[in-house]
C-alpha cells in the first residue's frame, strides 16, 4: 500500500537484500575480516602498519551508558595498552547527559574526549555542523590503518550512509566523506514470536499486518497476551512500533526538502492513521497497562512468557534468547517484521557512529584513530556481540557461523540491518522534538483519549509548527 502522497521513500539501502544475498555478502566479508580475527594488533607485520606508533599517549572515549557499549572496551583496556601502548579511559553517561556533553565538548576550544560515540538521530546536528574530523585520509593511509580493516565492504551500505558518511556541504546523509565509523553497536527492529504458541494454535508466522493482528487476537487466551509494544509516552513508540508499521505499509513520512523550505510531514495521510489504528487494535490484546510500557516492561513481559508476539530492537530484546534472563528462551523465534501485500517489512535503522572531534591537536587525533580502528574492528565487533549481545556493525559478525549457532536471531537481525530504513527526519536537528510530539499524540490514542485520526491530525499540526519555526517549511 502506498501513502496518498506518493511512492515509498528510498535511501541507499532501498533495494531489499534477500537471505541468500545477505549470506553471500556476509561470507565474503567474513573471509576478508577473518584474517584479522585475533585483532588488529596482530596485523602489525602487514604493510607498514604499526599499532604502537602512538605508544605512551592516552585516549579518552565518551560513550552512552545503559546499552552495554562500554563493557567490551573496559575488558580490552589492558589489551590495547599491551598491543598499542595507548592508555584508554572510558566515560559512559546516560543518553540525555551524553548528548548534552557532546554539544559542549565539540564547541570547546579543545575537546576533552578523543573519541565520541554519536546516536544516529543526532548525526546531522553534530557532523552536519562540521564538528568531526574527516576520516578518509586515515582510512587510506597504510601506515595508520591495518590492511585487514575492510572498510567499507564489511559494513551494511545503508548503515554507512547513516552513521559514517555525511555530505557536510549540502547537509545530508551519505556522500563520499567519512566522519564516523559505525559502532559500538548498530541495530534494527525484528519480530519475536513464541514458536510453541503459534504451532499449538496452528497459526503461521504473520507476514502482513493483517495477519499480525489476527494472530495476536487468536493467541490472546489462557493468560497470554497476543502482543505487546512500546506504547508509553516515549520516543521509542514512534521509532520502534509506529514507524515499523507505517514504513512497511508503504508510508512516506516527509515530502520536499528542508533546504527548499517545503519539508512537509505526511502524518495525517491514510497510512499514518492506519498504522496508529493498528497499534490501538494491538493494545486491546496487549498486557494491561501497555500504555505505560517502555522497553523494560515489554521485553520483561515477553521474557516471562506472558506475550506471544513482539516487535523490538534486536540489540535490546536479544536477551529474550538467554535462558538466564528468559523463561521462554527455547521457545522463541525471530523473523523480519511484517509487510503488506505489495510491500516488505521495512524496520527503522538504528545505531551509533564513533568519531574524532575536529577540535583536537593532530597527534591526539592520530592516536584516537588507532584506538577507534581497534574498537570498530571485526574481532572487537564479534567480542562485543558474543559477550554482551549488542547488535554488531559488521556483516562478517552477522554471518559468523559460531555466533549464529549461539544466537539464532543474529542472521535475522543482520538481514534487518541490510533492509532497514533511516527515519526521514533524522536529517534535521529537530528530529527528537518531532518524534517526541508524535509519540505524545499516539500514546493518547492508544490509551483511548483520542482517535487515531485526531492523533495524526494533532501530530501533523505540531510538526508543521516546529518545521516552520525551524525554517524548514515556509
Amino acid at each position, binding site marked *: 500500500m502506498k501513502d496518498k502522497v506518493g511512492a515509498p521513500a528510498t535511501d541507499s539501502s532501498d533495494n531489499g537484500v534477500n537471505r541468500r544475498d545477505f549470506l553471500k555478502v556476509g561470507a565474503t566479508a567474513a573471509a576478508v575480516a577473518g584474517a584479522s580475527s585475533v585483532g588488529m594488533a596482530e596485523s602489525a607485520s602487514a604493510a607498514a602498519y604499526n599499532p604502537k606508533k602512538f605508544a605512551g599517549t592516552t585516549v579518552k572515549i565518551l560513550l552512552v551508558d545503559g546499552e552495554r557499549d562500554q563493557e567490551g572496551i573496559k575488558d580490552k583496556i589492558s589489551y590495547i595498552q599491551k598491543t598499542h601502548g595507548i592508555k584508554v579511559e572510558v566515560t559512559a553517561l546516560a543518553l*540525555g547527559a551524553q*548528548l*548534552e556533553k557532546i*554539544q559542549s565538548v565539540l*564547541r570547546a576550544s579543545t575537546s576533552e574526549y578523543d573519541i565520541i560515540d554519536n546516536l544516529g538521530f543526532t548525526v*546531522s*546536528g553534530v557532523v*552536519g*555542523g*562540521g*564538528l568531526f574530523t574527516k576520516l578518509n585520509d586515515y582510512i587510506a593511509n597504510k601506515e595508520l590503518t591495518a590492511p585487514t580493516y575492510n572498510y567499507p565492504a564489511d559494513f551494511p551500505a545503508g548503515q554507512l550512509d547513516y552513521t559514517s558518511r555525511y555530505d557536510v556541504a549540502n*547537509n545530508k546523509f551519505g556522500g563520499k566523506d567519512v566522519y564516523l565509523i559505525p559502532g559500538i553497536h548498530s541495530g534494527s527492529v525484528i519480530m519475536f514470536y513464541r514458536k510453541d504458541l503459534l504451532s499449538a494454535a496452528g497459526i503461521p508466522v504473520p507476514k502482513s499486518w493483517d495477519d499480525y493482528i489476527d494472530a495476536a487476537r487468536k493467541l490472546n487466551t489462557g493468560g497470554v497476551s497476543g502482543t505487546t509494544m512500546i506504547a*508509553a*509516552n*516515549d520516543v521509542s513508540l514512534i521509532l520502534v512500533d509506529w514507524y515499523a508499521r507505517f514504513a512497511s505499509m508503504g508510508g512516506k513520512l516527509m515530502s520536499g526538502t528542508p533546504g527548499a523550505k517545503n519539508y512537509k510531514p505526511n502524518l495525517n495521510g491514510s497510512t499514518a492513521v492506519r498504522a496508529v489504528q493498528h497499534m490501538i487494535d494491538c493494545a486491546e490484546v496487549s*498486557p*494491561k*497497562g*501497555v*500504555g*505505560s510500557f517502555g522497553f523494560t*516492561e515489554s521485553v520483561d*513481559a515477553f521474557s516471562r512468557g*506472558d506475550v506471544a508476539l513482539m516487535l523490538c530492537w534486536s540489540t535490546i530484546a536479544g536477551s529474550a534468547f538467554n535462558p538466564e534472563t528468559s523463561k521462554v528462551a527455547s521457545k522463541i523465534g525471530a523473523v523480519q517484521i511484517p509487510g503488506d501485500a505489495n510491500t516488505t517489512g521495512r524496520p527503522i535503522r538504528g545505531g551509533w557512529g564513533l568519531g574524532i572531534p575536529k577540535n583536537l591537536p593532530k597527534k591526539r587525533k592520530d592516536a584516537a584513530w588507532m584506538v577507534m580502528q581497534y574498537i570498530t574492528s571485526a574481532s572487537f565487533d564479534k567480542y562485543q556481540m558474543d559477550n554482551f549481545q549488542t547488535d554488531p556493525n559488521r556483516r562478517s559478525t552477522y554471518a559468523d557461523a559460531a555466533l549464529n549457532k549461539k544466537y539464532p536471531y543474529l542472521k535475522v537481525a543482520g538481514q534487518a540491518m541490510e533492509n532497514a530504513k533511516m527515519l526521514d527526519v533524522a536529517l534535521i*536537528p*529537530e528530529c*527528537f*522534538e518531532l518524534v*517526541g510530539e508524535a509519540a*505524545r*499524540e499516539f*500514546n*493518547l490514542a492508544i*490509551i483511548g*483519549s483520542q482517535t487515531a485520526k485526531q492523533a495524526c491530525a494533532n501530530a501533523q499540526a505540531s510538526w508543521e509548527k516546529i518545521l516552520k519555526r525551524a525554517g524548514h517549511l515556509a
Partner: protein
Amino acid sequence: MLYSLGISFFEFDRVAGKWNFLGLGNYKEILSDKVFWSSILVTGVMVGVALIVEVVAGVSLAIFFGQKLRGSKFVRAILITPMILNPVVVGLMWRALLNPQWGLFNWFIGLIGIDSPPIWLADPKWSLWTLIFVDIWQWTPFIFVVVFARYQALPTDVFESARVDGASPLKIIRYITLPLVSSAVVFAAIFRGIDSFRTFDLVYGLTFGGPGRSTTTLSFYSFENGFVYYRYGFASALSYIMVIMATIGFSVLLKWIPVRRNH
C-alpha cells in the same frame, strides 16, 4: 544566572553553531504556547494539593510523635527514609510498585477488595494524582522533621500550666502548640513549596510528563526544551518566567501568612 538571562533572548542554531538574536521572541512564544499554560495548571495543582496534605500530615505526625510513645524513635527513623532517597530513584521505584502486571501496590489494594484498580501512570485521569501521592509520600517527612525539631525545643512549663488549668489536649494543640510551632511550619511550607514548584526529577523518573501532557510541570517542560530538544534560549526564558512567578508568589504568601504574632 546572567548568562542564562542573556541566552533567553537568543536561539541556538546547532548546525551553524551560532546564536541568533530573537529579542523577546522566546518570551512571546512561551506566552502563546498552550503547553506552557497547561504546565502552569499542572504545577499549580501539584504545589497546592501536595503542600496542603504534606503540611497537615507532617504537623500531625510531629505532634503525635511528640507524645514520646514507646518505640517512637524506631518508627521516626523509618518515617524519614523516603526523604533521603533520590527523587529519580523514587520515581523508578514507584513505577515498579505501580506496574499494572506485577506491581506490589495493585496486589495490596486487591487484598482490600479492589479487583480492577486504575492504570495509575497510563491514564490521564489518574497520572497527576499518582504523582502528587508519591510526592506526598516522599516529602511529608521533611515537614515532620522540621516541625518536630521545633516542637521538641518548646518549653514544657507552658504545657504543664495549661494542663493544670484544665485545658483539653485539643485546646492545647489549637491555642498553644500550633502558634508556637507556626514559624517552623511556615519555614518548612515555603521551603517545600519552592521545591515542589520546581519538581522535575520525580516527573522524569515516574511519568516523563505523560500521558499526553497530564504531568508536564513547568520545570519538566523547561528541561525537555533545554536538554532533549536543545532549545537553550526557550528553556532559559521559561526558567526566568518561573523565577518571576516564584518570587511574586512566595512574597505574597509571606505577607499573607503571619509568622510572628504581634500581640
